[in-house]
């Protein structure tokens, strides 16, 4: 029985990683209707900037918040400069631009920092925590905690502030929002900035565990997509929960279903997603899109 709990706990830890990046993905989608394929690379690049600062001697929390600011500005600038010219183009055109951004960020990071993995510090203790026979890292808990804090912050921001309301309006109905005096263009830019910030948090929480290298986020992005799909792209909380579910489910399948074992772990996780989608196409917690004729 103890192995069950251990695997669940490990799964939650891994799932927390997926969920934090999934949150950033959903954020951009909610704010701008675009699925940003470059989200992972933006997070990775922000983490590299943090690494540079830490290596230069800056203390951790100063670096953390400085990185958030840089990421925010970066996301904003990317939206205004790179995405703006194709804002009104067909959706797939924007997707290609995001893919272009992805390869550029990955390639530049590899060029500047080389491909060898680098350790990244965690603000939480290195010592493992033991409850009974179940062991987990303090960092794992801390990372999930940080993700939940970010989630809470976003919830409050969107629900209870005017700016948040304006952003939601701009995403759902740009033309009407303009009529209300909302500067839709800047709302989109803000959305990207916020999502980049969330991504940077995800990157800095992930890096201590998986080590920093330019391809760090590639695998995680895949799971983040799976998590967001499972939870529903219209639900930030759903995305995080989706991540936790995927993490735990994957581990349990790998442990308890012998003929699958670890060689089909990813496949099973994906099959789960597909099944959920067939039953509930907009994800577990998503709202079904209503098409007006």
């Amino acid at each position, binding site marked *: 029985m103890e192995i069950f709990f251990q695997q669940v706990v490990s799964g939650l830890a891994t799932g927390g990683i997926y969920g934090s990046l999934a949150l950033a993905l959903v954020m951009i989608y909610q704010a701008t209707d675009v699925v940003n394929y470059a989200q992972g690379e933006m997070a990775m690049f922000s983490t590299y900037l943090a690494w540079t600062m830490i290596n230069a001697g800056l203390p951790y929390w100063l670096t953390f918040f400085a990185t958030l600011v840089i990421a925010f500005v970066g996301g904003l600038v990317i939206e205004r400069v790179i995405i703006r010219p194709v804002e009104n183009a067909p959706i797939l055109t924007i997707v290609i631009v995001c893919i272009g951004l992805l390869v550029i960020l990955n390639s530049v990071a590899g060029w500047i920092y080389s491909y060898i993995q680098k350790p990244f510090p965690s603000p939480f203790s290195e010592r493992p925590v033991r409850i009974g026979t179940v062991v987990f890292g303090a960092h794992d808990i801390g990372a999930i905690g940080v993700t939940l804090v970010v989630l809470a912050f976003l919830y409050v921001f969107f629900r209870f502030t005017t700016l948040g309301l304006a952003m939601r309006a701009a995403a759902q109905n740009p033309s009407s929002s303009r009529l209300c005096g909302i500067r839709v263009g800047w709302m989109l830019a803000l959305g990207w900035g916020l999502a980049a910030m969330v991504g940077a948090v995800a990157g800095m929480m992930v890096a201590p565990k998986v080590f920093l290298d330019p391809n760090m986020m*590639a695998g995680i992005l895949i799971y983040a997509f799976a998590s967001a799909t499972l939870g529903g792209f219209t639900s930030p909380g759903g995305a995080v929960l989706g991540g936790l579910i995927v993490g735990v489910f994957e581990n349990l399948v790998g442990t308890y279903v012998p003929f699958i074992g670890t060689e089909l772990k990813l496949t099973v996780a994906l099959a789960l997603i597909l099944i959920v989608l067939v039953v509930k196409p907009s994800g577990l917690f998503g709202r079904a899109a209503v098409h007006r004729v």
Partner: protein
Amino acid sequence: MSRTPLTLALLAVVALALGIPASAQTPGVTATEIKIGNTNPYSGPASAYGTIGKAEAAYFKKVNEEGGINGRKINFVTLDDGYSPPKAVEMVRRLVEQDQVLAVFQPLGTPTNSAIHKYMNQQKVPHLFLATGATKWGDPKNFPWTMGWQPTYQAEGKIYAAYILKNLPNAKVGILYQNDDYGKDYLKGFKDGLGDAAKKVIVMEQSYEVTDPTIDSQIVNLKNSGADVFFNVTIPKFAVQAIKKVHDIGWKPLHILNNVSASVGQVLKPAGVDASKDIITTQYLKDPTDPQWKNDQAYKDWLAFMKKYYPEGNTEDAFNVYGYTVAQTLVHVLKQCGNDLSRENVMKQAASIKDLSLPMLLPGIKINTSATDFYPIEQEQLAKFDGERWVLFGEIFDAGKK
């Protein structure tokens, strides 16, 4: 008027005439240069290995600056194949058919080399010193133009199997391996080495994909299987995680780590020296982060080379020692060719290396090839990490002597 200028001119003409080969029979070779082709993954998921190609290019630059090989400079044409077999086929065909290289040296990766294996032999182009530990490259009867270089993964696996059979006959082994040709090759060698005992000895196998973010779950399962030996077949990124997790969950197996991830600076230190204590591996090259080589002349030379010719390269990365050493092997072969730089002679010289000792190889390990032995390096030595350095122990295993 002095006769010296005329004499000099005549001597020059004679020298040139002696130096010009019949270029139709010696592709890639002119009086002044030797063209060598290479593909490496400079992009994509395996881009961490791209530093090998860069280290090799840097070494050839050094050789050129010191006069080249018998008066000829090496023109090292290296292309990115992104670790994709179709791309590798395309790039290698370009090197052979368009760039007309003398040989294709150190293409990296098992799938990529598998894709070009038949082609290279059909075209009769030297396919030398492949950057992969698979066993199939040492088959001179069927593929006379292909030769590996490093000790094979299977041979390494067998060494660990032999060690376990000899020292821990009642061992229960749990294995973590990467789910691709590299991981599976280690697995096969290990199982072959155990022979009939394999079923009894191996209690659990867990695999992972390169795209997996963590391998925590696999480690937990392995501990739970009751294994008291952990065979860790992972690349550096996951090796660190594995070592850390094993330590964190309080599991204390005999930890065997594959050579690919045996770097002190890249893997053991980040994972924690306490967690890494008593890990066993095999070595054939000197680890540049191992303090025991700090005052070794060969290490100092390598460091100086890195600083001068590859300053952006990481001096803690064992891949850069690997690239340096295999490049030296090629230079040796080309020097042995003298003025006959035909492809046939290059293969002939590559297959006649006798007791070649290179500076960054461990003391006692030598390169040997023959017409029936296309495995240049077959020797490795076991080493145990004492918290600070790899302490070599036991005798040098020689896979060539069965």
